[in-house]
């Protein structure tokens, strides 16, 4: 009896958590999938209706704008976060003074919610309150910086705010990665005559492959799910020019009373996240098994 308990206790303890996750995560994913095949309007309905919602979704201008925006945002967010993160990490890696303070400063935005970031940047970028007004007040009468209210450029303001928030986090990942490299490797390279740039470019950064991979996965799924930043910064505007899939999904469900269509868009987002996460999990698990 005691032995049985000892053997099975971990399973018993974990069972409720597994059950809850099974129901509230996978159960509701399946429920959403089902609803996306129904013609649900204001409330969920359960008669199957076929793939009509998906046809409607991909015929909707607003959804196509949202997908375009997602591609622009994800690409720029990823590139800028990683590049800025690496540069900051390399600078901090030079055993400089007050590193702890600087590290905290760079990492601090991560502690804020996207709502706070969005609101602050909304004020900073507003042409009548923020940067533009400041420069005009300083005497640069012709200075314009109206990206936030310009429908062609507004999506880039979301990139700015997103990068400001997340670059510090990428820096922390890379800094941890760089610190875990044995000193001997760097010393050996230097004895062989490599300069600092070569050491980083040819030796250390290639060793950071797993860190690249981790930041890629984390940043991509943040960007696919990004909702609060847009709500705070532009509310999808000017017009509908900065709509993103997550915003489209909530608006469709709760403002447009199109629950079925909204479920279809949720499934598209789910598949996009899955396309990123599943290969990652697969490679991670395989490596663990190989060990």
């Amino acid at each position: 009896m005691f032995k049985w308990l000892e053997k099975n206790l971990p399973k018993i303890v974990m069972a409720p958590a597994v059950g809850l996750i099974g129901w509230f995560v996978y159960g509701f994913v399946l429920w959403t999938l089902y609803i996306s095949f129904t013609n649900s309007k204001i409330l969920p309905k359960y008669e199957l209706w076929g793939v009509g919602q998906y046809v409607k979704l991909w015929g909707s201008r607003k959804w196509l704008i949202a997908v375009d925006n997602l591609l622009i945002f994800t690409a720029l967010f990823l590139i800028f976060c990683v590049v800025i993160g690496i540069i900051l990490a390399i600078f901090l890696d030079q055993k400089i003074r007050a590193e702890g303070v600087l590290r905290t400063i760079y990492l601090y935005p991560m502690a804020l919610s996207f709502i706070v970031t969005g609101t602050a940047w909304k004020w900073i970028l507003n042409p009548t309150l923020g940067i533009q007004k400041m420069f005009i007040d300083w005497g640069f009468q012709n200075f314009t910086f109206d990206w936030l209210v310009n429908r062609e450029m507004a999506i880039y303001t979301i990139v700015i705010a997103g990068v400001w928030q997340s670059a510090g986090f990428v820096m922390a990942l890379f800094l941890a990665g760089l610190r875990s490299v044995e000193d001997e490797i760097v010393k050996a390279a230097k004895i062989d005559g490599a300069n600092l740039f070569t050491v980083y470019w040819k030796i250390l950064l290639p060793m950071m492959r797993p860190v690249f991979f981790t930041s890629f996965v984390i940043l991509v799924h943040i960007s696919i799910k990004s909702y609060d930043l847009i709500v705070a910064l532009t509310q999808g505007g000017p017009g509908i020019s900065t709509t993103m899939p997550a915003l489209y999904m909530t608006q469709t469900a709760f403002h447009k009373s199109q629950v079925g269509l909204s479920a279809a868009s949720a499934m598209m987002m789910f598949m996009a996240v899955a396309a990123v996460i599943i290969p990652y999990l697969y490679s991670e698990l395989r490596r663990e098994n190989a060990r």
Partner: protein
Amino acid sequence: MKKMLIALIAFAFTSTSSFAGPKIEVLHWWTSGGEAAALKVLKDDFAANGGEWLDMPVTGGGGDAANVALKARIVAGDPPSASQIKGPTIQEYDQEGVVAPYNIDPIAQSEGWDSLLDPMIAAVHKCQNNSGPYCAAPVNIHRIDWMWANKAVFDANGISVPTSWDELNAAAEKLQAAGVIPFAHGGQAWQDATVFEAVAMGIGGNNYYKNCYVDLKETCLRSETTVKVFDQMRKLQGFTDEGSPGRDWNVATGMVIEGKAGFQIMGDWAKGEFTAAGKVPGVDYYCAPTPSNNGYLYNVDSFIFYKTSDPDKQEGQKLLAKLMMGKNFQKVFNLYKGSIPARLDVSMDEFDKCAKTSNSDIKTAGASGGLVPSFAHGMAQGNTMKAALQDVITEHFNSDMSSVDAANALADSVLDNM
């Protein structure tokens, strides 16, 4: 000690179950300032009539959060007794089968709601496609097509209240030349649509408005008149300032109050901002209908009453419906809210000038066929169609889309969502 404990427990149990009488659970988002004060009047009335009120306030997002909570309750099979739902959405919930068997209809009949309300507004509150029994009660009428103008700014530039859109454009150009922002506007989709419907009713006329935005006729949406409406929207956009996109409506009202801007086009809830700043209508600011041919765009807040099998709650629904349509609540609530009573026989003596104008205009408009439902505020169309119209309007207003393209996009968007 032990006995006392038992007594206490027994008391605790009986006190929750012993109550018998009218009971109501109300889901609403009136939690701030005047709205909360007005609702308290209703709660006190309800308690004075021996009822028990279970409050279920859900704040956030101007009712968005409340709608999410409401849907969750309905899906779970336990709707609240009453909630804030308005316009065609009442019919949508009825079609889902969560409203029948219409508990409040006997009260509506015995109180004679048909004779107290304008027939058009009464129809909004009747289930089964606007002609069956009453299933919802109106609490107020908001007018949408208001222009709020700073009197000092208008006087300083020799401008009187415009009575046509051409006059309005001329006035705005004058203000622009004088270095004042003519048109205080918040560039959010619903605000763009609010201005659009006032322009559509004014430039197109009442019949055009009904054909296009109530009946959604394709030929009307693609017509020359729609192009003209979009042309006027483009002009108005030129009268806004750079900081307009994304601005909240009350910030825009603040610009008019402070004299930074000339006027705003917004529903009569804007009056609350003027009142709070200690401004008097006719002295410090003008409240005038936007130019139209005796038109009146209405937006009515209502409460819908869901089906319930609990007899106490059925009694509560009847009592609440009766009190909501009572003269006292209709008066007090609307004094706080800035709107006018839904029942037209309430004395307007205590109301201000703007509300009196609204009350007399609605009677004229009702008689002449100018009383039309606002689509931007969900009175003419359900949420799906409202959003379909709104998306195109806001896209046109915030881009360089041509008026012809916008009119066609409007028709296409409507057809896509039919």
